[in-house]
């Protein structure tokens, strides 16, 4: 009896202590998620990697077996043995729920299994409905409507709401997978957005379509890519691959000679050349800039700096 109480108390303590530690560490990790990346930021990666679904997405996109493959399997094993290994023991929310409202039933289901007289059984809080009601025509139509609505998700909002010509392909972080793979793999955690030192990476808005919603996009006018190569390091899914600085090709810059100050007004502006990280802008004798598309990496430094109201130089996605 005494031993059982001791175990119970220990269990209660650890069930509170572990999630609390995870909360504190996660907050620290989020705060450290900036350039240069602190070591504790890796913790968030490990937490994400516990998810077996993420493993599937990762393997599918990279076609390689990651060295953390043991982690999701371990979690599954623990869940099979202990039950709710993540939700009950690691997830900050679960742990706090356990503590915070001690009076409420957590629906853990232990009492059901423990009761040797099987006196406890599950029941819905609502009035139970008969099996016949559930298969009513009304419910069938409801379900049908719900499925039809969900299928619309595959269409981007602009495709439904605005003419197709307004749909602009977006600039993805350096090392991002091809667009369709990227959309399938990215889990919209926004860590790359948080780590981006220039603030150029932003989550896409709802108006860009529900599929692209919250995926990271580079807006050079907000901030160019400075090639810090931190976004792949925080990406848990493999949607942003590790590439070398030399391999970066986010897009390609296009110059509008109609509005460029050097071309249209003969001014020795050349701010784009000054900022170019790739040495991709050459000038002629008249101090007019030319973009070498081969060398351009699409970092957007030129677009970011262009003093013309609507930038005379713009980065467009590479496959356009």
């Amino acid at each position: 009896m005494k031993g059982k109480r001791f175990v119970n108390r220990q269990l209660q303590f650890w069930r509170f202590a572990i999630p609390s530690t995870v909360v504190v560490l996660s907050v620290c990790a989020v705060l450290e998620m900036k350039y240069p990346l602190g070591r504790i930021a890796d913790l968030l990666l490990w937490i994400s990697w516990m998810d077996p679904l993420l493993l599937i997405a990762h393997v599918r996109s990279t076609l390689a077996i990651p060295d953390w493959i043991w982690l999701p399997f371990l979690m599954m094993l623990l869940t099979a043995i202990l039950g709710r290994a993540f939700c009950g023991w690691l997830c900050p929310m679960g742990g706090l729920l356990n503590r915070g409202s001690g009076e409420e039933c957590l629906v853990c289901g232990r009492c059901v299994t423990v009761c040797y007289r099987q006196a406890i059984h599950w029941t819905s809080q609502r009035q139970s409905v008969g099996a016949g009601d559930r298969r009513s025509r009304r419910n069938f139509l409801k379900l049908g409507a719900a499925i039809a609505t969900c299928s619309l998700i595959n269409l981007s909002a602009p495709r439904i709401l605005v003419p197709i010509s307004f749909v602009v392909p977006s600039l993805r972080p350096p090392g991002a997978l091809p667009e369709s793979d990227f959309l399938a793999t990215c889990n919209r955690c926004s860590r790359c957005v948080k780590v981006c030192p220039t603030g150029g990476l932003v989550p896409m808005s709802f108006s860009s379509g529900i599929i692209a919603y919250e995926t990271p996009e580079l807006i050079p006018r907000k901030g160019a890519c400075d090639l810090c190569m931190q976004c792949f390091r925080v990406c848990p899914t493999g949607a942003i691959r590790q590439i070398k600085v030399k391999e970066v090709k986010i897009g390609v810059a296009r110059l509008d000679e109609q509005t460029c100050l050097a071309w249209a007004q003969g001014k020795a502006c050349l701010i784009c050349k000054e900022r170019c990280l790739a040495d991709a802008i050459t000038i002629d004798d008249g101090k007019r800039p030319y973009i070498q598309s081969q060398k351009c990496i699409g970092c957007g430094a030129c677009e970011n700096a262009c003093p013309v109201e609507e930038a005379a130089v713009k980065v467009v996605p590479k496959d356009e």
Partner: protein
Amino acid sequence: MNRRDFIKVATYAGLASAFLPGCFSQSKSSVLPNQNQKNSPQGNPNSEVASQARSRLVVAEGTDPGTLMEKGLAAMGGIGQFVKSGNIVAIKPNFSSTRGPDAGVTTNPILVGPLVRQCLQAGAKEVRVIDHTFSSGEMCLEASGIRAAVTGAGGRAYTINSRTNYSAVNANGEILKQADYSRDVLEADVFINIPILKQSDPTGISAGLKNLMGVVWDRGFFHQTDLHQTIAELAAFKKPTLTILDAIKGITANGPSGPGPIKEWKQVVFGTDMVAVDAYGAGLLGLKLTDVSHLAIAAKIGVGNPDWRSLDIVRV
């Protein structure tokens, strides 16, 4: 919790959130001295500098940057000529690029470190090393080696990449009528300009005058209008107490960001007349004064004297 309680809590929380930020911003502004009370932009320390130092152009030659800084400042009459006890010193190197010190496009960190140390030894209350960088601040501070050098010497290196770092001033130029100028510089008692000498495609040379574009917010305006004219007018608004030109090495083509061919001059040039220092630098780059019109304009509007040969040249 019933509805009444919920509404009460929400109201209190709303009121608290309205007042709390105010508290924080107040405490912040008390740290920053009120810039209206500060000296006029023309800067008084210049007048305190001995006339001997004012008519001097010191050229320190050698390979070790630390020694060059020491020799040069000694030949200028010591840092005490410029920095008095209790002064706030603003130092403006060029650390705008992430290419690193070897690329010859940013100021040598081994020059900046000893300068910061000397300022502190002369009794400076605070030494701020600042730049408005092209690339993101953290990366530039790291890659250029400036942060490591400055922090090691006891100063503070940071970027002024946010609009809040600037105050609107009347530059009263022909084109540059108003500018958002660095508050860190406006507040400082002593302003030391320490550019690297390099070639620059839009302006021919990047040295002292061009380096001052790193203490204004809207550089696009300069490029939009007339670079040479606006650079000269910006220089006329506030002249640095001392200009130290890092001509140890720099790129001679494809500037100002490079990569470009690097030339080693193994010199550091010291002077209180920024135009003279730049004119000397233009000579090192093989440019004639007529090639660099911002220097000519600056001379015309009285920023300084481009005829550096008329100064008292001290080679150490």
